[in-house]
């Protein structure tokens, strides 16, 4: 990836945008975990016993990774985790679409509330998740992997060696 050069402002912009988005999405899910569990159950991919734990895990992951992206705290790791999750969401929705199931996506309910978009599984949410996947790629590959408030150790001057 050394050949790809992207302006740091773009990486920062993507990081902030995606971070905010995932914080809102994860926070919303955590506020009504029961509803999110019931939506996951509709996917008919997981055993019933695992669903509440998975719902909690996904919500916490989104919230944590969103915060990491927003604060630029190991943002490359945060973006990588979200990238994997996006791939799983895309696969799950495609699977359900192919099986002819029709239910809520459970992705970004707040977007549905704000813009009146119907958040049912379909081509729309899949394309949107693919877009998020693409947007996460630059942060995953070129984002920072550091603690922002920790002072970077400056290299010792060359003449101190002697």
């Amino acid at each position, binding site marked *: 990836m050394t050949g790809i050069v992207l302006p740091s402002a773009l990486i920062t912009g993507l990081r902030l945008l995606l971070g905010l988005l995932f914080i809102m999405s994860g926070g919303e899910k955590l506020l009504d975990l*029961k*509803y999110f569990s019931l939506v996951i159950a509709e996917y008919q991919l997981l055993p019933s016993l695992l669903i509440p734990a998975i719902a909690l895990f996904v919500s916490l992951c989104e919230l944590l990774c969103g915060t990491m992206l927003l604060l630029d705290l190991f943002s490359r790791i945060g973006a990588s985790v979200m990238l994997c999750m996006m791939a799983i969401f895309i696969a799950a929705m495609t699977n359900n679409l192919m099986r002819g199931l029709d239910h809520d996506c459970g992705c970004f309910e707040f977007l549905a509330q704000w813009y009146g978009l119907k958040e049912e599984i379909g081509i729309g949410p899949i394309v949107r998740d693919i877009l998020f996947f693409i947007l996460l790629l630059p942060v995953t590959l070129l984002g920072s992997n550091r603690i922002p408030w920790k002072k970077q150790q400056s290299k010792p001057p060359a003449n101190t060696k002697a």
Partner: protein
Amino acid sequence: MSAKSLHRTLVASLLLLSGLSPAVAQLHAEPSVALAKKETGNIDLAAAKALFDTHSACFVDARSEYSYYNSHIKGAWTLSESRFDEQFHEFRGKMPVTTLIVVYCIGPSCPKARHVAEKLKKNGYRNVKVFSGGLVEWSRAGFPIEG
């Protein structure tokens, strides 16, 4: 046959026909749609409300469980079409097969209520009705909902 007996026969026939006519007229006046609904066990809003008020039926929500979680007819059970097998076990344990069941979905265009009603019938429930107006009609009428 004499003219007198013929006259009597005609009068008797006319009387018989006039006596039968209200019943015949009523039968023809009943819209074919309503008849079809009766055959398939569909009920309208008024009938559903009457059953609700008298507590003489168990209401079943055929929509997805998360939709039921958001809002449903007060006191209704959830038996979603998609997760019927998982939810039916508990339902069977609490509802005898003789119970009058009213299944509903979001509205008339939603086929889930009919599908769940068929599944219930297959599982031994004989007294199953479909409230085709569904939750939309129920909530528009201002009838009790919860969730």
